[in-house]
């Protein structure tokens, strides 16, 4: 995969297990296990191919290549790659789903920054 290319980002490797609330002001790449809550108001979250996230996620953009279970709120976009397995409701302005991605849950498209309002709250 591709980890975020621009700027700095925090990286959680595939052997790392975190339980709790994660928040930050930079992009986050998760290839390990996270259970709890992730909040990255104006930044992006990438769940790598080995990533296993069981958390409600709130971010500007969310890219999923691994597993994500929880509510996803993205003020800008959600990108499900072909290896993504997502169980949970997705609220965003835009969504892209590659052939092969698995989604079980609701997709609610909210234009005009309404998703941003709920992401930042």
């Amino acid at each position: 995969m591709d980890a975020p290319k621009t700027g700095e980002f925090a990286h959680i490797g595939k052997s790392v297990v975190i339980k709790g609330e994660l928040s930050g002001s930079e992009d986050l790449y998760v290839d390990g296990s996270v259970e709890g809550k992730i909040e990255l108001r104006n930044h992006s979250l990438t769940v790598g191919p080995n990533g296993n996230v069981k958390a409600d996620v709130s971010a500007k953009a969310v890219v999923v290549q691994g597993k994500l279970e929880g509510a996803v709120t993205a003020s800008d976009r959600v990108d499900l790659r072909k290896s993504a397995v997502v169980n949970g409701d997705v609220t965003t302005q835009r969504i892209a789903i590659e052939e092969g991605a698995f989604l079980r849950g609701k997709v609610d498209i909210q234009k005009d920054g309404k998703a941003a309002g709920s992401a930042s709250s």
Partner: protein
Amino acid sequence: MASVSDNVMKFFRSSSNQAAVPAVPQKLTRRSSGMAEISRLLNSQESLCVLDMGATSASNIRFFTGRGHKNYSEDLLRSSLDPELRVRDSEGNSVIDSQRFISDNLVYENAQFDVVLCWNLPDYMEESLVKPTIDRLWSVMKPGGLLLAFFHTRDAGPDSICYRYHVTDSELLEMQEVKFAPPGRPSSEKQSPRLQRVFANRHIENLFRDFASIKFFLARDAIREVLVVR
């Protein structure tokens, strides 16, 4: 005594049968009278809740959310093949735990959905799950809601290809062959689900007897489209 894997494999077409089936284009299109009626409902109201019970389809999500509606995706056929649903009955036969299947899937509030797209699910799902699934759908649909299901006619042979449906226009569907690997098998061993049964009209009417009305559309491709009103 048949193993769990033997019981799961009966839901997939054998490779020897696949060799006899002529090659088909990867995607076909068909006009759907049932989808046309659903599109009229979608165009007349806002913020409807749609439940798509086929494989995850970006096209379907785009079609419904682009019109201002909420889309729920739940691939029930894939879920029904979970080997953990298999239990032994009192005689040692492998059966599906239908109660657990219903409790694990279709977990929604009552009267939530305006539209349910069953596609060809009843034709390919284990028989013991079909009626409980339809009963659950009745409870999670709003009065007046529409349910669309496709049933093969007797003209369809046992090797009828299982398609998934992508909504591309108000009455146009793109059909794509469904293939997925049986549980525990690698993705290189993807197979197509096998047609489990052909419903007679009276059986379909009985299946949806709790619904307010039922309408049949017969098409040339050995498919009956059934549109029911909750």
